[in-house]
């Protein structure tokens, strides 16, 4: 088997790595996180110019026509720099849903704008009571004539503060947790009846709770088939989990490298702490955790690239392993850095916080272990 990346993938990787190294140092990132917008629109334009926003989209819409491997290369490198600009919410989720479910007209309208960096998007799918159950949806969309009227509340919407447009998951029929009867709608974040309450998260993201009160949208706002959204969202979730796992692998690699460097230089009782066998064995464990995560990511990539349905089981396994190994890696990174590892000044804790948010996004280890059991051990 050949696990080498193509020349094009290597170029994208190098270009993001260069950006992180030259233009996204720790102080710059800190200033961006603390700024009013919590992101840099100049950076976003740069991402558009460099073609990063086009990676997963079809060439007919001005995209790069990339596959899951291309996307994971981008995510891994963005992860290494803890880049807070909303690539995941806008490109992977918002753009991903339009690319999957949108009509030809909707794709032609929206994808070029995403690629050009003209629109920031978000996917509003979590509710107070839902946890990770995407089908647990109380937000409603009621058909009135040709239009729909949306009512309800979505919480912890990634990029909810800055998004110009949202894809909202709403119920067009059925009961609260039915798997049928869910639909996706494109909603202007500035439309009448849309109210957002933004707040910051520990990983530097800005999220929002978004309330919808008699929000009127036309029939052209419906994304995909009425009542059939769950299949689309489930399929997107698999891709999103792989993308997040790639980001997590990038982060784990950075944490291990920084911790290794620290144990080689930090002296205690007159010697480098890395000279103690007890710590050496633990450094080996974290190295293995990283390599193991990368291997399972590669398995998921190979399967998904061939046929997304093939990857279903591996995607659940991947989320379980990323959660467990991520906690192991950041736990050891903090512990071995001693008290310093927790401070706001050192970036170790910030990498840890991003891993924690990755772990909970689209289901934590416990959730995916249950899904894995259902998928793999089904009678």
């Amino acid at each position, binding site marked *: 088997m050949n696990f080498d990346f193509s020349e094009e993938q290597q170029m994208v990787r190098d270009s993001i790595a260069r950006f992180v190294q030259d233009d996204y140092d720790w102080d710059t990132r800190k200033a961006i996180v603390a700024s009013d917008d919590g992101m840099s629109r100049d950076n976003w334009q740069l991402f558009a110019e460099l073609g990063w926003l086009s990676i997963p989209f079809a060439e007919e819409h001005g995209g790069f026509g990339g596959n899951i491997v291309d996307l994971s290369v981008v995510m891994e490198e963005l992860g290494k720099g803890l880049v807070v600009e909303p690539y995941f919410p806008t490109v992977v989720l918002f753009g991903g849903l339009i690319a999957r479910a949108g009509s030809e007209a909707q794709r032609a309208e929206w994808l070029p704008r995403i690629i050009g960096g003209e629109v920031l998007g978000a996917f509003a799918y979590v509710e107070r009571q839902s946890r990770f159950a995407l089908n647990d949806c109380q937000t409603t969309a009621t058909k009135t004539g040709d239009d729909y009227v949306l009512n309800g509340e979505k919480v912890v919407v990634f990029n909810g503060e800055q998004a110009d447009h949202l894809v909202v998951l709403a119920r067009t029929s059925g009961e609260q947790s039915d798997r049928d009867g869910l639909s996706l709608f494109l909603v202007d974040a500035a439309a009448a009846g849309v109210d957002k309450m933004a707040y910051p998260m*520990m990983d530097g993201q800005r999220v929002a*709770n978004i309330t919808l009160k008699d929000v009127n949208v036309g029939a052209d706002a419906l994304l995909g088939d009425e009542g059939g959204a769950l299949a689309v969202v489930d399929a997107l979730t698999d891709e999103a989990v792989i993308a997040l796992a790639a980001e997590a692998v990038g982060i784990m690699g950075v944490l291990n490298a920084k911790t290794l460097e620290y144990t080689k230089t930090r002296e205690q009782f007159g010697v480098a702490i890395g000279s103690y066998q007890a710590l050496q064995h633990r450094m080996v464990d974290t190295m293995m955790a990283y390599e193991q995560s990368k291997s399972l990511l590669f398995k998921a990539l190979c399967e998904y690239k061939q046929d997304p349905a093939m990857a279903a089981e591996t995607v659940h396994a991947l989320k379980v392993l990323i959660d467990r190994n991520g906690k192991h890696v950041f736990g050891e990174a903090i512990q071995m850095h001693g*008290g310093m*590892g*927790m401070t706001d000044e050192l970036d170790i804790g910030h990498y840890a916080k991003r891993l*924690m948010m990755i772990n909970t996004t689209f289901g934590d280890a416990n959730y995916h272990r*249950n899904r894995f059991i259902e998928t793999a051990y089904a009678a």
Partner: protein
Amino acid sequence: MDDPGFQQRLADIEVELMALEFTELRTLATQAAGGFPGPESSLLKIKGTELQQATQELLMEIAAYYQGVLPTDLDPDALGHEFAVDARKAYMYGRAATIYGGSNEVQKNIIAKYVLGLE
């Protein structure tokens, strides 16, 4: 709470907590009998802080997406979650528990040297 995977891990913590309580009582009994608390206090520190972190981790899992919320002046009703902010604070501060007061690595060195006699 009715999730079997979650219950299993909660039970694992509970089982160890029950043992920890009696390790603590044994230490106190030695003291009450006029003895000095020995190296078993290192054991208390190691197990106590590990279990503390495990419990804090479970609380974060319960908070799910909300676990990352930073303190703001939003009230819990508007936010949609009661304890997420406190859970996150406790979890983050809890990371220090295995480091301060003689890190757990140092505690293990103490046990190795003074209890097990390893030099």
